[in-house]
């Protein structure tokens, strides 16, 4: 079953088209990796999946993103509600500095102004920290500030914070790019466990990471030559829908099960990227 369905998605910053015409289905309870050179729009696309893209001034989209068949961008849909179903972990670990580890984990509940009994909170904190493989390391110092943990622990705290609100989908934006190899391994191990419960989408600049953890991989690329050709073509056809003369937008080049994409890329650009010829 498909958890997320992306249809004809264009993402803009003001007038600048950052991601163009993406169509893809992301299956339930699996890990999907977005890879591609920097500037290919993979992070932007990720942020459209929980409407965080709109948090950037000028950020807007056209097209459709459906979660369990329901359009996240439909009229009357509150972006705040969307983010309760689709959680996110950022590139740089960002635990709330004024809160303890304990408070960080239940921040999602508190920030929604929900009341929670002490007992339920204790349980939620333990469950979430266990899911994030962090419980054993921090259970004896839950009241210390989250910022005092190591980088890898902070990132797992952020994952615990995200799972504590029981989302359906967890988005991760290059969660390991600032971590050492050992911490990275711990997070990757964690992701494999998380996919039992959640649909996971991860943006990574690390191809090996995508190969190690993901079930399917999407390769994005902002191809200048193809873009130039396309705009020329559409200009001659009289189509003015594409902005002229800007940086090329990111496009979904190839999307396939991870084994297939890495072993038998169908597109030449994918093959070039995977063999390290650019990026």
């Amino acid at each position, binding site marked *: 079953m498909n958890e997320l369905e992306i249809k004809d998605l264009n993402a803009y910053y003001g007038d600048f088209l950052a991601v163009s015409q993406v169509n893809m289905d992301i299956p339930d309870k699996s890990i999907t990796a977005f890879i591609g050179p920097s500037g290919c729009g993979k992070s932007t696309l990720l942020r459209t999946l929980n409407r965080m893209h709109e948090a950037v001034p000028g950020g807007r989209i056209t097209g459709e993103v459906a979660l369990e068949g329901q359009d996240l961008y439909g009229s009357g849909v509150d972006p705040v509600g969307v983010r309760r*179903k689709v959680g996110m972990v950022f590139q740089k670990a960002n635990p*709330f500095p004024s809160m303890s580890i304990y408070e960080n984990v239940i921040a999602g509940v508190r920030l*929604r102004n929900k009341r929670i009994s002490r007992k339920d909170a204790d349980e939620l904190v333990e469950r979430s920290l266990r899911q994030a493989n962090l419980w054993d390391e921090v259970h004896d110092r839950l009241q210390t500030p989250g910022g005092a943990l190591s980088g890898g622990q902070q990132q797992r705290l952020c994952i615990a914070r*995200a799972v504590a609100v029981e989302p359906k989908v967890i988005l991760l934006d290059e969660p390991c790019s600032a971590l050492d190899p050992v911490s990275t391994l711990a997070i990757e191990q964690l992701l494999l466990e998380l996919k039992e419960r959640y649909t996971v989408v991860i943006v990574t600049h690390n191809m090996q990471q995508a190969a190690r953890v993901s079930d399917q991989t999407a390769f994005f690329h902002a191809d200048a030559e193809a873009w130039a050709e396309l705009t020329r073509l559409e200009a001659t056809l009289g189509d003015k829908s594409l902005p002229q003369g800007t940086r090329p937008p990111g496009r979904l080049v190839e999307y396939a099960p991870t084994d297939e994409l890495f072993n038998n890329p169908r597109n030449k650009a994918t093959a070039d990227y995977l063999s390290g010829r650019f990026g």
Partner: protein
Amino acid sequence: MTQLDNQLAIPELQLDVPVVHEDQSVLKAQSRALIKDKVIAALFALAAVAIAIPLISLLWTVVSRGLARIDAEFFTSSMKGVVGAGGGALHAIVGTLEITGLTLLVSVPIGIAAAVFLTEYAAPGSRFASCVRFLVDVMTGIPSIVAGLFAYSLFSLVLGPAYRSGIAAALALSLLMLPVVIRSTEEVLLLVPHDLREAGWALGAEKHTVIWKVVLPAALPGVISGVLNGVARIIGETAPLLLVSGFADAMNYNPLEGRMASLPVYIYTQWQMKGLDAQAYDDRAWSAALVLIAVVAVLALAARLAPRLLKGKK
């Protein structure tokens, strides 16, 4: 002025050191440049030392003359019925506390809310926001006596020209305090990393909840420090209080009505309306000045230490 303009107008300097031969004239030019450098350095240091002279003289006078009346009576009695020696400044201290408290009550909530609007809600490049920022700058430059005239104009229009009160003084001081709070709060809010806001939003929190529970707590130490600095500035304001809360010899706890003494005005009136025993009045003025400076110094110190203390606790 003209000499300064000359210095500023020289775009390139005379690096009068040709690199051809190390003959006598080159060495001479080099050492001349070095001597000039030393002399100018000494001049700048002298300017820096020059500011210490009035400061030391002022602090020394305030402390040495102010100690005269630092006694129990000074802090426990008013000037009611006092002619000549004795009496105290309790009524002025209480007045200053009440007026300052009321000022905070008005300016801090509005100031923080306005700063939140400027940093969190206003769209980048918003006309309204840049207009407000400009007017905050303008407000910063309002002479304090004009703030007093404003409060007088407002209250006298409604309550008659003879109306004097602590609340009118608080209104005048709020006008001076508001831009300080807005500016310092805006500065610290801008320092709160953007990814904390994003983390909050990504958890499905409403924007105002993120501001209230994530952004403001992160900025709190800086906000407190800004407010303390603002209080240190307005607590010594004299001119507006002289106009709208006036001076009084007796205690007045009610800020809504009647003249209300305050420390700065107390200093001024003790000096200005000396009785026959001039020494007693001068002593009281200096002691009040010492108390006021001590309060200001404590506030300024607290403003500096607040961020460290508040962060260390957590």
